[in-house]
């Protein structure tokens, strides 16, 4: 049986680990709430834009922007991969990468090449190991991501799309279902499918200044950027939620371990006392 002193040191070291994981859990919980607020507040912008885009799509059928060109043959597609900057958030990133790998495999089997843009440290590290054509990347967005940090990365992809180097852009990120569940998802960003029931009934048109094309171009770019921004914010909320859950289970496990060790420690102590008493009694009998 291990010495009582050894067990005591072990218990105290686990206790300090538990303190850390508990603190991280609480920090993640408060950050998650803020990230969720941010998620909600970025929504009206994108919704409003989508409305206008739908309207423009139906109001000026003679002009189709490249971003709306649905019929392109797919030879090469781009993925924008949104990940967290830091670890200790359970299987959040690895689940996403696994989902992405399955998709990439399917694309390659169909003879489609893939290129990537990464957002966040973990995705970059992953592609370094996995190997892949990374066209642009951004890391260290922090807890409050700003849209201007994303402009460059998104533009790299959009430029490649307009130049015909890639034929579609997808975004891979985690979607926030609830605190316990985050679902990895891959969605198509470009070409935009503006063909929907919504906005079909308009009979009037806007006055455009300077003209419809310029307005639509600016609008579409901003719309895509705002979608990427939303994905980043949502992934941030997922990260905090996943970290909170992971840290909670780590704290619980540490608690169980401490209980077990405490039991072993008590037994060891008891055994030592019993032994001492029997030695004294034995000694007294001999005298």
């Amino acid at each position, binding site marked *: 049986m291990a010495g009582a002193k050894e067990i005591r040191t072990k218990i105290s070291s686990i206790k300090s680990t538990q303190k850390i994981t508990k603190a991280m859990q609480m920090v993640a919980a408060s950050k998650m709430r803020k990230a969720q607020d941010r998620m909600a507040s970025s929504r009206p912008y994108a919704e409003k834009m989508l409305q206008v885009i739908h309207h423009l799509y139906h109001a000026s059928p003679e002009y189709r922007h490249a971003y709306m060109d649905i019929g392109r043959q797919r030879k090469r597609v781009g993925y924008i991969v949104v990940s967290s900057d830091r670890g200790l958030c359970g299987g959040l990133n690895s689940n996403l990468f696994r989902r992405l790998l399955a998709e990439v495999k399917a694309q390659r089997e169909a003879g489609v090449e893939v290129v990537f843009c990464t957002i966040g440290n973990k995705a*970059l590290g*992953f592609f*370094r190991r996995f190997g892949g054509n990374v066209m*642009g990347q951004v890391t260290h967005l922090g807890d409050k991501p700003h849209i*201007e940090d994303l402009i*460059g990365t998104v533009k790299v992809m959009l430029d490649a799309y307009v130049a015909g180097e890639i034929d579609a852009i997808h975004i891979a990120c985690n979607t926030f279902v609830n605190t316990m569940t985050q679902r990895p998802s891959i969605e198509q960003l470009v070409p935009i499918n503006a063909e929907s029931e919504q906005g079909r009934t308009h009979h009037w048109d806007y006055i455009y200044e300077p003209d419809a094309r310029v307005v639509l171009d600016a609008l579409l770019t901003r719309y895509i950027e705002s979608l990427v921004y939303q994905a980043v914010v949502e992934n941030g909320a997922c990260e905090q939620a996943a970290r909170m859950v992971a840290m909670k289970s780590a704290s619980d496990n540490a608690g169980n371990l401490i209980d077990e060790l405490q039991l072993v420690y008590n037994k060891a102590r008891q055994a030592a006392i019993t032994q001492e008493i029997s030695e004294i009694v034995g000694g007294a009998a001999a005298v």
Partner: protein
Amino acid sequence: MAMTIHVDIVSAEGAIHSGLATMVYAPGEMGELGIAPRHTPLITRLKAGDVRVEHDGGEMEHFYVSGGMLEVQPDVVTVLADTALRARDLDEAAALEAKRRAEDALAGRSAELEYAKAQAELAEAVAQLRAIEKLRKMKGK
């Protein structure tokens, strides 16, 4: 009560203002715009400048936008504000920067990334060790 128009000012990072106004002034790309209630539908780009919202009582509220879009419908004005200064060459520079960062990182010039990579390798090694241990236990039994 005077005729009013609903004004929404939103940016990608959140709603900035929402409320009723008797008049809205905005810096359109083709010139300053004044929008009264029942304005004809209009959509335009905005320059950097001041969006002014005139309330019922006549007091003005100012919002600085660094550009964006303005959408007008007869009873709703929506300002889709940019949060950052946008210009063609600025965007271009940002794109180049993102590309350069990717190249740098993949060429292995970033210490931070080395760390991330080492961490990932460590996790892999630990998982392998754990698997070996499990196999051993199974064989031992």
